[in-house]
């Protein structure tokens, strides 16, 4: 399988580092290899420094004390992330990043401990559901992806009204094949109503080479870079 290695336009992606984040450098490397300029953003910074997209990577931000993401959401950088998201900027939360985005109210629902109470670290088959979001470019609904999961709190929950809204608005990004953690409706990833904020439990940054077992993560990361390029062009037009 060939993986596209070029970005339509050089874009800068910010990767947020909280104390306890541990997938930051994998994410940094994966995006860099796909051709993006990549910047690490410390959680105590108040500005995103003009990036075209933001990734909140996996890990255990602030030790996941109290609840996953509960302390991280009050970091100074999160105000800047919320403003950026509010202005339509692409924001992706991977694993712990997904948990941070739900705690911050940028995505609905919450993530509870896995139904089987096991920490899951395994390859995972996924099915794309909606592609009207910043990880959808170049993908089609029903596309199957193999991307690893690595989490204890990946059990997505939301109330019935929220679930109906997610389905009706095309906000279900991907589902698990064979639900590993008890998530409602097999949900592995969701987006906000405008599609510019996405949270997912699987780790695309760990699926970037056949040497790692799968390069399917590149499809999602390349989609993000395309979305970032669109944001950059739109910003350029506004500035012009």
């Amino acid at each position: 399988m060939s993986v596209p290695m070029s970005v339509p336009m050089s874009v800068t992606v910010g990767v947020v580092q909280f104390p306890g984040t541990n997938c930051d450098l994998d994410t940094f490397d994966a995006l860099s290899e796909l051709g993006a300029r990549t910047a690490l953003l410390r959680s105590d910074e108040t500005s995103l420094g003009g990036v075209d997209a933001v990734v909140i990577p996996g890990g255990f931000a602030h030790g996941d004390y109290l609840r996953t993401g509960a302390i991280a959401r009050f970091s100074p950088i999160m105000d800047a992330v919320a403003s950026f998201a509010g202005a339509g900027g692409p924001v992706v939360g991977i694993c712990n990043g997904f948990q941070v985005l739900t705690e911050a109210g940028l995505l609905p629902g919450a993530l509870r401990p896995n139904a089987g109470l096991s920490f899951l670290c395994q390859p995972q088959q996924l099915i794309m559901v909606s592609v009207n979001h910043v990880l959808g470019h170049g993908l089609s609904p029903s596309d199957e992806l193999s991307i690893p999961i690595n989490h204890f709190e990946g059990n997505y929950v939301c109330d019935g009204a929220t679930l109906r809204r997610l389905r009706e608005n095309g906000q279900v990004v991907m589902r698990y094949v064979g639900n590993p953690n008890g998530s409602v409706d097999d949900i592995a990833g969701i987006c906000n109503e405008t599609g510019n904020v996405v949270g997912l439990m699987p780790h695309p940054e760990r699926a970037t080479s056949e040497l790692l077992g799968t390069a399917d993560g590149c499809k999602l990361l390349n989609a993000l870079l395309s979305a970032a390029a669109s944001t950059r062009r739109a910003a350029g037009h506004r500035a012009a």
Partner: protein
Amino acid sequence: MNRWDVLVEVSPRAEIADPAGTTIERALAALGFAGVSGVRVGKAIRMDVTAADESEARSVTEQMCDRLLANPVIEDARIELRAATQDHTT
């Protein structure tokens, strides 16, 4: 100002599955404790709160629950207040 011993009990909401609670319930049954049901596992957060009166102490604790201590999507919070036996603030 007066001091209150505050206990905040955070538990998964009734409609939220609680695998830890279910597991403990099964373990209790296996140990022979019959008639145990509805086991739920949450967190107990204890703190000292200094405030003018009980209603202020409660109101401040409620704000803590809303903003940080509990996630209303999945958790309920219950607050217990008790006047501290000794006033350490003087």
